[in-house]
């Protein structure tokens, strides 16, 4: 065989040598990998653990709240806040000093604030000052190189353009508390998030709260942003349209100016509340700042209780208003007819005790309608003498007293309708028949809220059909649940006759009289105050003997459109204080909603 291969031994040798060198280098590199992965493993593992994701919330604007005419009652405004990465605060007294100097905060305040958020993860920002003024924003922005740990953010901030007006309807926002965060499993809270703390802001918090957006970014071991990974845009919360009529609300609050009390106006057909006023009021704008503990404490400790929503949380003795319940009970049970008359001499001796009428000379002989018109105590003592307390309690409950109305407002109180059962349980004593006499005219242990009285009046105006009070507009009439009271429909007219006379025929409710508007109403004055209450009043320099003043009524008599309930604490007689105020409300309502041609009708 001929030699067919050329001599390639030299270049093959060179090739082999090169491969050997390459392999040696590869081995050295391998050793380097060994060093990194086996020797320095712990160090790199720690570094990789410090490399993580962080999500920054982009807060969603809360839904707006409108009145029934689409006037904005709760708005959002852009506001600047400055937050700080928590880890940059940790153990760093110096940082706290510097930052508090920049922002005019007290160092201890700032420190306390960051400690409050000890449960937050270290890279999450803590809000340290909000609602910044423009010059503060300028200072922070201008010196951001010196303060890399600060983060300036714009957030939508709640703003109530009418201040104190309808504050008890709207409620207010406050920073979510640590307890709330721990207690809630469904919702994920952020530190410093604002949440509805009272009234409708609380009731409809989930509805009004939008879906917060998120900016997910990667952070390195020093907490610095390493770039955006993902972004979810925030979704604004849903808007809420209230049944409140801002004009009437304002009028009502004017009338309550300087007084303590409550006014409710509602539509008996739907239960929609047009006015919901509680006095004194407060400015919810003042609560929104996260940083005014002193101001907060001063409002909390105000003895007049501006935060108390008297419409549903004020418990009062109903006084003569309760005579409506007594009358209905007597009619329902057949104890009396509308023609049944009693004689009022000014006082009566029952169970060996003298009971007096508020009108000392006595009303003489009167039937039911006249008794209601004049709010005669003697007449109702006579009924109370013959009625069983448990039957009265039964019908009182049927009319909505002694239990919550179910209005869409948090914190409603039940009130109290006494019964033999109740007394045995609460005091371990038997019920004395003499107490029934007191209850019959609305004294004794009966306690009601103004809203319960308004709801009862609506039931009366509807001739026995109950409605649930509400603060949002009814979109669909069929969804309304109408419940009937356990009373015969025809007996209501007999009581209404008395209420009509009370206003239109020179009765106790005469002060509410408006020409051309068929108002029916009942006054009340609570004569009994507890010793405790009297002491409180004396402390505040009030006349201890003044009574609470009630008026509740509706109009027009047929096809009623509006129920007005007024309570003025220590307002004196119902006819003197509450009734004229109610008249003003009826007037304002009529001017706005009832066609003027009706004026000439009478």
């Amino acid at each position, binding site marked *: 065989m001929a030699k067919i291969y050329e001599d*390639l031994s030299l*270049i*093959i040798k060179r090739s082999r040598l090169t491969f050997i060198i390459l392999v040696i280098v590869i081995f050295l590199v391998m050793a380097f990998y060994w060093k990194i992965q086996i020797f320095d*493993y712990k160090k790199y593992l720690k*570094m990789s653990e410090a490399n993580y994701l962080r999500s920054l919330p982009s807060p969603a604007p809360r839904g707006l709240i409108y009145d029934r005419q689409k006037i904005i009652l709760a708005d959002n405004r852009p506001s600047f806040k400055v937050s700080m990465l928590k880890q940059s605060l940790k153990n760093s007294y110096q940082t706290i000093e510097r930052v508090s100097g920049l922002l005019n905060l007290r160092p201890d305040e700032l420190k306390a604030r960051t400690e409050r958020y000890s449960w937050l993860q270290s890279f999450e920002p803590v809000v340290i000052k909000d609602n910044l003024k423009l010059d503060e924003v300028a200072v922070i922005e201008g010196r951001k190189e010196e303060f890399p740990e600060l983060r300036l953010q714009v957030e939508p901030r709640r703003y109530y353009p009418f201040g104190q007006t309808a504050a008890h309807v709207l409620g207010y926002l406050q920073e979510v508390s640590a307890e709330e965060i721990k207690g809630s499993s469904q919702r994920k809270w952020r530190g410093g998030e604002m949440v509805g703390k009272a009234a409708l802001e609380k009731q409809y918090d989930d509805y009004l709260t939008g879906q917060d957006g998120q900016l997910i970014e990667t952070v390195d071991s020093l907490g610095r942003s390493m770039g955006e990974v993902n972004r979810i845009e925030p979704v604004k919360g849903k808007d809420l349209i209230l049944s409140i009529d801002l004009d009437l609300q304002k009028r009502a609050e004017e009338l309550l100016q300087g007084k303590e009390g409550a006014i409710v106006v509602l539509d008996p057909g739907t239960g929609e509340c047009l006015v919901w006023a509680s006095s004194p009021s407060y400015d919810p704008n003042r609560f929104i700042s996260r940083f005014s503990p002193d101001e907060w404490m001063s409002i909390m400790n105000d003895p007049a209780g501006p935060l108390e929503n008297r419409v549903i949380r004020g418990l009062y003795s109903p006084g003569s208003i309760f005579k409506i319940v007594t009358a209905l009970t007597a009619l329902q049970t057949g104890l009396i007819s509308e023609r049944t008359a009693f004689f009022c001499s000014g006082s009566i001796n029952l169970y060996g005790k003298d009971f007096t009428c508020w009108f000392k000379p006595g009303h003489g002989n009167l039937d039911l309608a006249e008794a209601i018109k004049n709010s005669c105590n003697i007449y109702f003592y006579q009924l109370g003498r013959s009625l069983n307390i448990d039957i009265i309690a039964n019908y009182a409950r049927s009319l909505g007293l002694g239990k919550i109305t179910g209005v869409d407002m948090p914190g409603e109180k039940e009130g109290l309708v006494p019964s033999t059962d109740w007394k045995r349980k609460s005091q371990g004593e038997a019920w004395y028949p003499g107490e029934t006499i007191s209850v019959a005219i609305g004294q004794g242990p009966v306690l009601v809220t103004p809203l319960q009285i308004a709801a009862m009046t609506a039931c009366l105006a509807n001739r026995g059909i109950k409605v649930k009070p509400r603060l949002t507009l009814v979109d669909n009439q069929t969804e309304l649940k109408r419940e009937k009271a356990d009373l015969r429909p025809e007996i209501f007219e007999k009581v209404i006759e008395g209420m009509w006379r009370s206003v239109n025929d020179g009765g106790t409710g005469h002060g509410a009289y408006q020409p051309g508007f068929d108002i029916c109403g009942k006054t009340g004055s609570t004569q009994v105050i507890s010793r405790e209450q009297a002491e409180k009043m004396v402390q505040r320099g009030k006349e201890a003997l003044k009574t609470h003043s009630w008026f509740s009524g509706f109009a027009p008599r047929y096809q009623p459109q509006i129920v007005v309930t007024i309570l003025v604490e220590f307002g004196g007689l119902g006819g003197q204080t509450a009734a004229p105020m109610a008249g003003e409300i009826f007037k304002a309502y009529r001017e706005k909603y009832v066609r003027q041609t009706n004026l000439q009708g009478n």
Partner: protein
Amino acid sequence: MLDRRIFREIDWPTILLMVLMAIIGIFFVYSAIYYQASQYVWRQVLWLGVSLLALFVLLMIDYKVLLNFAFPFYVFMNVLLILLLILGTRVANTRSWLVIGPFRFQPSELTKLAVILLLARLFSDYKEDVMSFRAFLLSSGLVGLPFILIAIQPDLGTAITFLPVLLGAYILAGLPKKYAAIILIVAFLVGFFGWNYMLKDYQKKRIETLLMPGQDPRGAGYQLQQSRIAIGSGGLTGKGYHKGTQSQLRFLPARHTDFILAVIGEDLGFLGILGIFIVYFIFLYRLFSVSQLSPDRAGVYLAFLSAMLIGCQFLINVMMIVGLFPITGIPIPFLSYGGSSLLTNVLLVGLVANVRMRRFVYVRF
């Protein structure tokens, strides 16, 4: 003439090792960018199929026939590179992509093939033990032209991969010491002027970073730092497939391309890296051994230069991701995502297999 006997000689083990690496690569491309993976994975699978098809076509043609087309091929590729510089659209700020329909292709990759074929053709008749000055200039110029054309695209990473080819030619042809001195001087001058007048800032940064890592943790050093953290935190056995936080949380840059081995290092740890190195070692051994089996000079050159190119790309990449070499954007052959690079590397293996298949001279009687 196509002799059927030679098909028994197809180097299946080498081809299988290569396909294995490509499949491992696809698995980790998926792990690295699972959120948009399907697009990438299917594209890479498609490229693998196309490349294997091209490989078998290549195997059918005798490398000696290929060498006859080396010069026209070389001229064609360089003209393409020039046209690309003039007419090419910028993709990711370089003019290195040829866009045909949905496919993008980097001509600079195939140019490697042309350069290797041409060098083999050139030295196939060169029987001296030591390189002549003419051969030195000619080979340097032939590699230098595409190097410059690619470097100004600018794609310095791909350009640099031409240097191992030239180095391989120097070694085989026997570079005298004085020429080596010339190279050093030229390199120094190029380095000096290049540093001051040619290199872009980001390129300077990368070199500075290599010398002083940790100086600029948010810039160029950041990539290296994150890559090292990924590999280091993998430890011995790794965090598990698809569980590496460095890659899943996107701290690793270019996870599916240049830094794919860092993903493997994080997911599978040192054992995974060791596995890749062993596969690569066997693979390179088989490639280099062909240069010792070749029946002629051209075959030695083809096999050796191809093996050099693949071996050096591998070496540069594994050094780069741990900071032993500047970050230059050189992918790891077969493992990294990238169609042009995969095709070129598969064809390089095809060249080597081609030589091996035809290592016997069949004598007709």
